[in-house]
Every structure is written in structure tokens, then in C-alpha cells.
């Protein structure tokens, strides 16, 4: 792929912002690691060798009968009966954290929430679940939610903004009035009402939040289109007989995308904060899901267990700080006044 001189200059500007450039790499590394959460924090071993047979419990279900047990259901590798049987006639390779996000540690010496120990690196929550595992899975779900919501809001926002800005007149007038009414709706109340009707899962929550998050980009794209539709190249394209759709999306949109791309990391940050706030209030992901907002709520309810609040705060602040630094670097890269 060959880059145009403008794209090369933007890439150079982005690289020159060392803080943003390295923040992007650190964020990508953390996100990449969290995508492999099942291999880092799991209550099943990665590899089991039993009677010279290899099993991979992370990706396959192996019944307890396989290891000399009585149950046809999946083996509980944390159970001493199963682990002793395997160790007697083979070996197991465990992930670094031997808990998944929903594994309860029944072997705690103190009441939960238990403080950090060699087994639970940053302690357990009030239900005896490992906080480190929940932070890793919670980070992944937050970033994935934020990314999907950002992409979908971006698509809807850009299309609506483009149509309003390009056609102007009544289309713009009606669109703006609709957005004014829609943005005036009390989002939190609607979420409370909706979550009392349906139990919101990941996709429900995404849909509900998308209903109100697409308006962020409309004004930016609309303003760019209002400006660009009077430019000479657009008039030339129209004079050559090009259709409205082609002029909008092939000629004006690439110029309008600069402002859109600059906003993207900040929209992502907003989406993650939104999900965390809803989880904190109890209107977010269903109970039991690994969520940073729920961890903060637990930290608030258990002030005598500071590892809960601190771990959620540190992971959230690192994630949001990295994204803001990347956002600043993107903004600098697209700034035409910067060489």
C-alpha cells in the first residue's frame, strides 16, 4: 500500500508525538493480552497429560470419567480428586492465574473479600472471586464494548451528518430538530425503564447505548459537509454529472473524515466510561459478568478492602489515560498547521 504525501506527513507527525505513539503500543499490547484472557486466567489447565494422552481443557470439554472419576460432566480441575488423579499418572500446565472471572475460591483462610496473597495476587471480591482475573476479563469486555459502540456510532453519525450537511434546507432543519428532541431525552431513566422490562445483556446494552451515542459526530460531519458542498471541486464533480451519493461519499467524505478520526479515541473513551458508569449503578451488564464498574461498586461497598477499588481505579485510569494520549497524538497528526 502506497501512502500519499499527506498521509506520510500525518504518520510522521503521529510518530513524532512519542507519548501518543508509545501509548498506542502499550494499549495494543494490553488489549492483545486481554484477548488471550483464557490463556492467562482460567480455572482449567492449558494442557493435561494423562496416561500418555494429551488433552487441552481450555478449548475442549473433557469429562471427569476420563480421569477415573464417576461423573460424565466436565472435570473440575481445581477439585483435589481430579488433580490428584492426573498428577499420579501425568501432569498439568496451568495458566499463571488459576481462576477464571467467575471461579469462586472456596479455600480461603479469611472471609471474602480476602486480601492479596500468593494465590489471589490482588485479592478476591466479596464473593471469593479472583480480582486479577476479573480485571483482565473486565478490561477486555470494556474495550470490546467501547470499540463496537464507537464504530457503530461513527457509521450512523457520519451518514446522518453527511445527509443533513449535503442537502441542507428542510432535511437539515428536520434532522436538527429531531436530534435536539432525541438528545433531550433522559438517557439514564430510559435505561432504568428498559432494564426493568428486559435483562440487558452485552448486545441489548450496546443497542440501547447506540440509540443515544450516534449524535456525537453528527454536528462535526454536518459542519464539514455544509462547508465542503460549496467548494469548487464539488461544483466541478456536479457539473461532470456525478450523482449526489458519489459526490458525498467519494469526494466530500474523505475530507470530512479528518475531524471524525480526530474524535474517535475520545468517543471510545466516552463509551468505556459510559459502560463503567452503568455497571457501577447496577444497570449495565448482567450480574456475574466481569466488569470494572461492578468492581468499583464493590470497592465502594467494602471500604475495608481497598484492593477492590484500587485495582479497578488503576486499570481504568491506565486504559483511559493511554486512550487520551493516543487521541492527542491523532489530533496533532491531522492538524494541517503542524509540519
Amino acid at each position, binding site marked *: 500500500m502506497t501512502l500519499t504525501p499527506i498521509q506520510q506527513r500525518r504518520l510522521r507527525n503521529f510518530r513524532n508525538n512519542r507519548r501518543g505513539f508509545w501509548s498506542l503500543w502499550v494499549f495494543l499490547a494490553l488489549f492483545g493480552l486481554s484477548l488471550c484472557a483464557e490463556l492467562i486466567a482460567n480455572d482449567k489447565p492449558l494442557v493435561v497429560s494423562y496416561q500418555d494422552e494429551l488433552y487441552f481443557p481450555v478449548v475442549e470439554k473433557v469429562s471427569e470419567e476420563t480421569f477415573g472419576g464417576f461423573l460424565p460432566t466436565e472435570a473440575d480441575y481445581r477439585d483435589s480428586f481430579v488433580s490428584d488423579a492426573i498428577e499420579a499418572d501425568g501432569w498439568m500446565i496451568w495458566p499463571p492465574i488459576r481462576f477464571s472471572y467467575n471461579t469462586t475460591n472456596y479455600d480461603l483462610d479469611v472471609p471474602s473479600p480476602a486480601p492479596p496473597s500468593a494465590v489471589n495476587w490482588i485479592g478476591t471480591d466479596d464473593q471469593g472471586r479472583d480480582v486479577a482475573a476479573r480485571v483482565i476479563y473486565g478490561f477486555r469486555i470494556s474495550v470490546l464494548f467501547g470499540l463496537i459502540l464507537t464504530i457503530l456510532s461513527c457509521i450512523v453519525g457520519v451518514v446522518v451528518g453527511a445527509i443533513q450537511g449535503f442537502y441542507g434546507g428542510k432535511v437539515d432543519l428536520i434532522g436538527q430538530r429531531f436530534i435536539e428532541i432525541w438528545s433531550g431525552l*433522559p438517557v439514564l431513566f430510559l435505561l432504568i425503564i428498559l432494564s426493568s422490562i428486559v435483562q440487558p445483556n452485552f448486545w441489548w446494552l450496546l443497542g440501547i447505548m447506540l440509540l443515544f451515542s450516534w449524535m456525537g459526530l453528527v454536528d462535526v460531519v454536518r459542519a464539514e459537509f455544509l462547508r465542503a458542498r460549496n467548494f469548487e471541486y464539488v461544483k466541478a464533480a456536479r457539473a461532470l454529472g456525478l450523482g449526489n451519493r458519489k459526490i458525498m461519499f467519494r469526494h466530500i467524505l474523505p475530507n470530512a473524515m479528518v475531524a471524525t478520526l480526530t474524535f474517535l479515541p475520545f468517543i471510545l473513551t466516552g463509551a468505556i466510561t459510559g459502560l463503567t458508569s452503568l455497571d457501577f449503578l447496577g444497570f449495565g451488564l448482567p450480574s456475574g459478568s466481569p466488569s470494572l464498574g461492578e468492581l468499583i461498586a464493590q470497592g465502594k461497598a467494602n471500604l475495608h478492602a481497598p484492593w477492590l477499588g484500587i485495582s479497578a481505579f488503576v486499570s481504568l485510569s491506565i486504559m483511559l489515560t493511554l486512550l487520551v494520549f493516543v487521541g492527542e497524538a491523532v489530533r496533532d497528526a491531522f492538524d494541517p498547521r503542524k509540519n
Partner: protein
Amino acid sequence: MVFGTLYIFTLMGLVLKLISDITYVLVDPRIDFESREGA
């Protein structure tokens, strides 16, 4: 209280949107809000 806050903030939003539309024309006089439906 809640709806009062919502009302005030929505009203502020409407006024700000109106001001920003007027500012568009001041910043770039080429901007207009006329219809281009026949284009």
C-alpha cells in the same frame, strides 16, 4: 428537581446549537443552510 435540571440543560443545549450554527457562517462565509435537493 431531576426534570428541572433536564429542562435547563436541554434549553442550554438548544441555545448553544443555535449559536454554533450562526458562528459557522461567521467563521466561513461560504457556508449557507439553503437546500441543495435539486442538485
